[in-house]
């Protein structure tokens, strides 16, 4: 049945390029509020990027000799990767543990992870002083194998490929090639196993990057457990992103979803909330053990200590309790709120480790310029553009069948 419809509607009777060109055309309203804000912003960011490559980093960025990593690395790379952790957690739950009920979330989460990683790699290149030399650690004329960054960079690249393989059956469906879909589908489990392994190592590896900055990161944030803490927090960061994103998708793309999807979505969200709460408890507990172990309790009474408590109580402990409470009384609003607070907490934590508590004693402080913010936000905007483009065309939220049916309805 479905293959028939596929064959009738999408089988490339037209050449591939004609089909692709027709798909490139925007669909839907062009003058939405989101577009009115994002288009000028991205254009402005393009100008800023040109200035950055002509005059050097300091023309647009406030990074200093003592705080050499700023917003682009701290937010786009270190924080963004944690947010994209949902893909490996969900593929683990569905493909490894066989939790079928979360399957509807897989495609959209993997797509999001793939885009996130691709764009954060782009953000990283913007920040490099000599981006053309990025080829060196790749082609192997100088392998710095003792470097954690080397490990993270390679895992980053390989994981992008693994995610592309995980997502590729969707692309094959879009192009209407059933044979390609079947063949690509065979690769999924390998890509999933490989992807989870890579994620374990680079999520923790991002934390391990800061192991050598002992004495330069405030003792409340520095810990020999940073890799473990980064790994655990990537679980609830990724799942909170899935929950938060899901609530937006339910609204924006509601026309793609049937009437049962709300109910089904709520069930999935409640399950993920439980996982979040447990992971957050483990994280919070490990933080406390670490504090006792390293005798850093005394720092809590300092201004940095107050800032630490904002992060740990306001954006870890409270959202954790909200997740539990939200699941118990069954209120999606509470769960959404908890997921947003968790995401804020992750931003705080990653920014604290890489920028704010890094050389906390240094004066003057690093404060990002407006230009750094524009580029950071624009990278997210372009990511949303591509995400939207894909969702409109490929069978991510719904089946190909449903897509063609609704397309026929519109034509009629």
């Amino acid at each position, binding site marked *: 049945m479905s293959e028939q419809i596929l064959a009738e509607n999408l089988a490339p009777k037209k050449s591939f390029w004609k089909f692709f060109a027709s798909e490139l055309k925007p669909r839907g309203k062009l003058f939405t509020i989101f577009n009115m804000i994002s288009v000028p912003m991205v254009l402005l960011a393009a100008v800023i990027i040109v200035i950055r*490559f002509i005059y050097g980093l300091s023309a647009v960025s406030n990074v200093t000799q003592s705080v050499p990593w700023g917003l682009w690395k701290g937010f786009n790379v270190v924080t963004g990767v944690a947010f994209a952790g949902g893909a490996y957690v969900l593929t683990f739950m569905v493909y490894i543990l066989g939790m079928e009920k979360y399957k509807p979330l897989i495609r959209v989460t993997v797509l999001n992870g793939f885009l996130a990683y691709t764009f954060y790699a782009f953000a990283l290149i913007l920040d490099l002083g000599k981006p053309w030399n990025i080829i060196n650690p790749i082609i192997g004329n100088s392998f710095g194998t003792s470097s954690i960054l080397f490990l993270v960079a390679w895992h980053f690249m390989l994981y992008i490929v693994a995610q592309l393989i995980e997502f590729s059956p969707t692309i094959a469906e879009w192009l209407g090639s059933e044979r390609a879909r079947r063949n690509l589908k065979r690769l999924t489990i390998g890509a999933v196993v490989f992807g989870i*392994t890579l994620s374990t190592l680079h999520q923790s590896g991002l934390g391990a990057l800061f192991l*050598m900055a002992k004495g330069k990161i405030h003792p409340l944030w520095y810990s020999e457990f940073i890799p473990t803490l980064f790994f655990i927090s990537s679980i609830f960061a990724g799942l909170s992103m899935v929950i938060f994103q899901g609530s937006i998708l339910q609204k924006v793309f509601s026309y793609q979803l049937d009437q049962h999807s709300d109910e089904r979505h709520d069930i999935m969200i409640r399950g993920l909330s439980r996982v979040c709460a447990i992971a957050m408890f483990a994280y919070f507990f490990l933080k406390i053990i670490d504090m006792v172990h390293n005798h850093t309790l005394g720092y809590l009474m300092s201004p940095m200590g107050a800032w630490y408590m904002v992060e740990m109580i306001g954006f870890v402990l409270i959202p954790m309790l909200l997740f539990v409470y939200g699941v118990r009384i069954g209120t999606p609003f509470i769960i959404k709120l908890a997921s947003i607070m968790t995401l804020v907490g992750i931003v705080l934590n990653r920014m604290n480790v890489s920028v704010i508590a890094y050389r906390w004693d240094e004066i003057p402080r690093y404060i990002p310029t407006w230009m750094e913010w524009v580029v950071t936000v624009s990278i997210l905007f372009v990511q949303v553009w591509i995400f939207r483009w894909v969702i409109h065309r490929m069978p991510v939220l719904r089946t190909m069948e449903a897509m063609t049916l609704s397309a026929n309805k519109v034509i009629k």
Partner: protein
Amino acid sequence: MSIDRREFLKTLGVAGASLSGAKALAKSTPEPDAQEFYAILHDITLCEGCQECEFACAAANNLPAPADDDFPDSAKKRLLKPDQYSVINAVETSVGEVYTKQQCMHCAQPACASACLTEAMKKTKEGPVTWTEGKCMGCRYCMISCPFDIPKFEFDDNNPKIGKCQMCFERLKQGEVPACVENCPADALTFGKRSDILREAHKRILDDPDSYVDHVYGEYEAGGTSWLNLSPVPFDELGFKTNLETKPYPDLTKGFLYSVPSVFILWPALLLGLREATRKEDKELEGGADHE
């Protein structure tokens, strides 16, 4: 063939002796360790803050010489810059004004070199930690990792370089001593093999314990450095970092790096095992699309 108890013990003893003998032999072969690197001693009690080393450094590395109004002054701290590899600061202490010299410490096991993913930062077997422009991709992870905050980056350049002391590596290869050492008029700088320099430093403390604190800065800091300092006052009074590890900084990442191969082998096996254990009989996982 039977072997009696006495014979057996004898054999054991011979084997044991040969084992320990082999060990002793292995110990006696000299390993190229931190002791064989070149090192430089800065004796702060002798330094007059004349800046000759700064001018020599600038000339040797084709860098701009310090400006006329840029001299050591205890009222302001002068900083290393991408185009200034060595800097003299005046510090007011309990024994009066003294002069410190800051530059790359050339650690025996440098954090920057272990951080570098392109081997642009490298510990040479002679001792200097060098930077190679053609390899560097400008990620600045060396700056994040360096416990002494030494590498400086040309943020205002579209083809930026990392600036830091290279211990005049080119001069060393030609048998010359570093430019700063050669041009020091006060003999505050001494160059030589690290073991000799360390011995000399401890000798000075022993000979004149009233003039020095009993601490050679760099002997154990960050696991040992090729730049050593002698001071008349405790080093924290001079603004030197005193909260440093005494083991090499790359050791901090070793545990993580060692765990990587284990995870790489164990995780896939564990994941595939879990998958088999939880697999459903009807194999719907491979069959259907991702949608129900």
